[in-house]
């Protein structure tokens, strides 16, 4: 029993929290990939941007980071739209690879702007350690994990409503299903693209803020998560937002749980190789099942 509690407290629940962060980022990557047909390498830096916007509010106005979250989401959503207008829009008719390379440029620009504005020091949203909350029978959960998981669930529910009920959400699904047919149906695809960036950027900000809460804030906090995000998006199947959520959770949990001493007393995977789990899953999926678990597309 105690061993189970340890497993849940120290490996599983942190894994779920990390998984939520991945899920939020991966949904945007998956949607952008399906609708604009390119792997958005600057997505991690959009996350970082959101995290720093929240930090500014926390540091200057003394807000709680959770209060700052909606503002960060809005700011990053608009950053997404602006970046698309300035950097990606001229390439709508070019081969996808050109846009990927342009996203390298955006990555440099956004990150260096963050470094210029906020500096390069490692920051914290709040100092001090909070006591974890006791659940039943020896189970404990850190406050930050509860909040990350709860807010992620709320965001996911909102996203589900948007994609399955709203006109624009359905148009987004239509366009990721078949962009030409969407155009033929009279859907204003540029408007769909704008919404894609709003959603993708906003979710990225949430992921970035949570990543900062979960550990620390630094200019490459998002970049460090980029590959796990790709891994999650691929695992879930490109163009499958729900798949990306499952993929994110799966990879987050797998990363943490892989460090549990399954055999003997040693961690199965040394903690330093946590990220390798994500990379490994991604490479294997790409090679053997690029459509992902949920039959997404291969572009």
């Amino acid at each position: 029993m105690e061993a189970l509690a340890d497993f849940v407290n120290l490996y599983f629940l942190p894994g779920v929290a990390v998984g939520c962060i991945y899920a939020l980022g991966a949904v945007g990557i998956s949607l952008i990939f399906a609708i604009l047909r390119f792997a958005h390498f600057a997505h991690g830096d959009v996350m970082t941007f959101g995290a720093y916007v929240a930090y500014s509010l926390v540091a200057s106005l003394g807000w709680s980071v959770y209060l700052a979250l909606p503002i960060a989401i809005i700011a990053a959503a608009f950053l997404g739209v602006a970046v698309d207008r300035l950097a990606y829009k001229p390439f709508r008719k070019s081969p996808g690879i050109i846009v990927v390379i342009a996203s390298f440029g955006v990555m440099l620009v956004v990150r260096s702007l963050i470094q210029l504005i906020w500096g390069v020091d490692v920051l914290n949203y709040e100092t001090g350690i909070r006591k974890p909350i006791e659940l039943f029978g020896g189970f404990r959960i850190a406050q930050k994990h509860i909040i990350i998981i709860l807010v992620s669930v709320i965001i996911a529910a909102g996203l589900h409503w948007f994609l399955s009920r709203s006109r624009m959400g359905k148009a987004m699904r239509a366009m990721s299903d078949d962009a030409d047919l969407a155009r033929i149906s009279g859907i204003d695809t540029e408007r769909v693209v704008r919404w894609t960036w709003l959603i993708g950027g906003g979710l990225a900000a949430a992921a970035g803020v949570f990543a900062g809460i979960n550990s620390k804030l630094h200019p490459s906090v998002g970049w460090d998560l980029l590959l796990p995000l790709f891994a999650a998006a691929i695992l879930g199947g490109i163009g499958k937002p729900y798949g990306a959520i499952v993929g994110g959770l799966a990879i987050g949990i797998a990363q943490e749980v892989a460090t549990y001493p399954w055999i003997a007393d040693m961690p199965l995977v040394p903690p330093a190789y946590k990220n390798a789990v994500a990379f490994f899953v991604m490479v294997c999926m790409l090679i053997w099942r690029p459509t992902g678990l949920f039959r997404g597309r291969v572009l």
Partner: protein
Amino acid sequence: MALLEAKGMVGGYGGMDILNGVDLAVDAHEVVVIIGANGAGKSTAMKALFGLVALRAGQVSLGGKDITNAAPNDLVALGMGFVPQERNVFRTMTVRENLEMGAFLKPAAQTRVMEQVFGLFPVLKEKADQPAGELSGGQRQMVAVGRALMTEPKLLMLDEPTAGLSPLMMEQIFERIVAINKEGIGILLVEQNARQALAVAHRGYVLATGRNRFTGTAEALLGNPEIGQSFLGG
């Protein structure tokens, strides 16, 4: 004046011309059919009318308004509907959602027109909440046609709506096309099943290698032995 009029269309894919000067016209209330061998450029001509293939020369007008190389979603707003030959439904979306996407530009009329479409294709009402990718070929064609009807177009363009369907299903589809036309919608149809198509059409065009080969009333084309041999299967 014709509802849709195209003169001397020249264009193709990536610098290679497929159309070498194609003329087409459809009147309101008319059913017009385009026939021709595989690769003659029928689909390309349709796409060019709908702004999906860029024209290097020539003109297209709708009700007297120049629409050469206009964007597809603007054409939908002007009253054109198009059912392409392939990939003509959103496979991952339900039948209802497919129809809703057709109504993207006219959300106000959505419920009313959807009822009309369900009236035209009752199966679709039964299957309304099933993903379109899971339907049979004929049902999928109906979804595609229904989707195009959702904006209440003045002109409906259909690229081989009966391809791969059983004779019974084909008959049904043609029947519905006639019914749609009776509602006052002009129809431009590409067909491999040329005989059946000409039977319901008013006029027809025969394309060969990106050019007009024959043009005439349906009766005239059906009666022309040369066409009968090479395009109507004897």
